């Protein structure tokens, strides 16, 4: 594991200490967990805004695409598909089937 030193606000430090105490883990473990949660949140937000594709989110979070679909479903993140895209897609499949 790599070592990195960083400056934290007093409140952030207190929060990490509180969480570490509550969960019976050391501060490094809690900090790593929080970074992981933050990364997940950021990726879900970028996906929701249509700025990252499903495959890119999966890659960033080190998940399979199937697991990423499950994660998006768990958090109720809507697919960035517009209603007019839906109408267009309907016509395309009608021709193909």
């Amino acid at each position, binding site marked *: 594991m790599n070592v990195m030193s960083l400056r934290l606000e007093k409140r952030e430090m207190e929060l990490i200490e509180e969480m570490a105490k509550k969960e019976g883990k050391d501060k490094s473990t809690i900090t790593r967990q929080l970074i992981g949660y933050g990364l997940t949140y950021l990726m879900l937000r970028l996906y929701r805004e249509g700025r*990252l*594709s499903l495959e*890119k989110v999966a890659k960033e979070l080190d998940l399979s*695409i199937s697991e990423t679909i499950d994660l*998006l479903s768990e958090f109720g993140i809507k697919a960035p598909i517009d209603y007019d895209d839906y109408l267009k897609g309907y016509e395309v*499949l009608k021709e*193909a089937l």
Partner: protein
Amino acid sequence: MIIFDSSTLILLAKVELLKEIARQLEVVIPREVERESTVKNTFDAKLIKKLIEDGKIRVAKVRGKKGKKKLTDDFNIGEGEVSALLLARDKDFPLATDDGPTIKACKILDVKFTTAIHFLIGTYEKGILSKDMALVKLEKLKKYGRYSSRIIDNAFRRIKGG
């Protein structure tokens, strides 16, 4: 023939509609999509793997490394998504995708696209699925496909009213 990227392929496998679709249509995926949709031992991965082994889904090689890199950068989409897009464009067949940025790329590159929910409506309208079964699968697609309520309502009306 329809080209699939991983998003629609996996969604249809999750709602157990992929086998029926592969029976009705020629389903083609790029090698990159095969790799990323069968990477773990999930139910959908096993189903996709079996359909490929049985020759129900055809795997195609996509050439043009330079073109792939440019599209990946231009549209911020992944390798599998780009390969499926290029295959659809080169063969002039529709692309099945449930990915927002890939749909945007389709519009710019004039590639026709469709999504998982359309396969459900289509198979119902063709009489392949009963109304009850189509409604059950719509519930599952609502969960995994995460379509807007407007899209789900419209699909529900098409099935319920048909």
